[in-house]
């Protein structure tokens, strides 16, 4: 018991210390690496709090894909290389106004969180009992999936819409950057990608399927499949081209569309939206989750690519 307590204290101290280190680093690359490690330790913290679903999502999205997005952004900012060259430091002091606005917004968010925590009823049983009572009607046996896709499906729909909005904005912005392909990573990496990618696809499908009864689900599966796409982009097995745009648009939208259509269909059949008929609940939930998984994976991959696919000559990509 004391060993576990010591471990928890050490873990908590490391998380806070890494958060501080992430903010205080001078070099943006070191900052991102510290942030990724911070995400891994956060996931460990969630696992210690017996929240494996959150831990999985944190490690896949918070540490893995966010880290990849940040590194990609840094490479763009530094002209295709990750190391700082010739004073092109990203950590140059921002001007006072920017810092002031950031501090104000971060302070407001902290205050809102504090208020929400203090305003929440203390020392009363949570909603677990209600969830447990309603589980037979949910169509699945894993409470987290029941809450996400059934009892509070509206919130989840909004999360999917947020991702859709993000990718729409990214595709709208033409930043005038030359297409800088990722540097070729060599034959060892290609071999690794050939072995690992098919297995990762199976792992993603497994996470999606197992979500009905155990930790897993659309977000974790989408993150794993998104990572597959990122590895594919890095290995140049996938080369985004303008011809891919209609397919990509369809993939971005399909999750939101199917989710909303199911809600409308259920509402049209004389029930409240998202009040799935218990007999079909599992089918509907898995249908929604599968489509949302596709959308999440496509969206994360598109965010990593960072722009709408444009025509690039072959010589340029083979540089």
């Amino acid at each position, binding site marked *: 018991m004391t060993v576990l307590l010591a471990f928890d204290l050490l873990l908590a101290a490391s998380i806070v210390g890494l958060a501080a280190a992430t903010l205080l680093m001078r070099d943006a690359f070191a900052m991102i690496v510290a942030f990724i490690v911070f995400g891994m330790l956060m996931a460990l913290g969630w696992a210690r709090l017996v929240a494996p679903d959150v831990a999985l999502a944190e490690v896949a999205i918070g540490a893995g894909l966010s880290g990849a997005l940040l590194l990609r952004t840094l490479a763009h900012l530094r002209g295709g290389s990750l*190391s700082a060259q010739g004073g092109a430091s990203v950590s140059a002091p921002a001007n006072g106004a920017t810092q002031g606005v950031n501090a104000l917004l971060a302070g407001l968010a902290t205050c809102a969180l504090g208020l929400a925590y203090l305003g929440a009823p203390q020392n009363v049983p949570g909603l677990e009992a209600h969830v447990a009572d309603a589980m037979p009607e949910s169509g699945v046996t894993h409470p987290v999936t029941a809450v996400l896709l059934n009892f509070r499906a509206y919130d989840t729909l909004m999360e999917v819409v947020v991702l859709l909005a993000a990718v729409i904005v990214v595709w709208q912005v033409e930043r005038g950057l030359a297409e800088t392909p990722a540097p070729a*990573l*060599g034959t*060892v*990496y290609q071999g*690794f990608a050939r*072995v*690992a990618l098919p*297995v990762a696809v199976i792992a993603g499908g497994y996470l999606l399927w197992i979500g009905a009864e155990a930790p897993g689900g659309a977000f974790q599966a989408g993150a794993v499949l998104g990572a597959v796409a990122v590895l594919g982009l890095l290995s140049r097995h996938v080369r985004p081209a303008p011809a891919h745009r209609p397919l990509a648009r369809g993939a971005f939208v399909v999750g939101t569309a199917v989710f909303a259509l199911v809600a409308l269909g259920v509402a049209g059949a004389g029930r409240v939206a998202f009040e799935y008929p218990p007999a079909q609940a599992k089918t509907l939930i898995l249908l929604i989750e599968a489509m949302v998984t596709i959308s999440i994976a496509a969206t994360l991959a598109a965010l990593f690519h960072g722009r709408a696919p444009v025509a690039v000559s072959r010589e340029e990509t083979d540089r």
Partner: protein
Amino acid sequence: MLEIAGMACMALGALFFVAGTIGLLRFPDVFCRLHALTKADGMGLALVCLGAAIGAPDGGEALRILLIWIFVALASATGGHLVARHARRAGKLVREVRP
């Protein structure tokens, strides 16, 4: 008995991780550090996975741990190779050992 064997494997694995970390902190240049880290951590990972597999409740769980071991080992070997490759291309020569 099996439980003790599993714990012993994990403890031994943790020792390898500690050795790899000491190497990472003490060795002078990126290639020496990678050498310490990838080899020692690879062994540590194998032992931790073996310990976890011994303690697994059923064969399916042990099989999953085996798969995790295979793919983490592959990924870390590839990652180590990529770091070394990048360092060599960036022209980081082997630094002389500090006096």
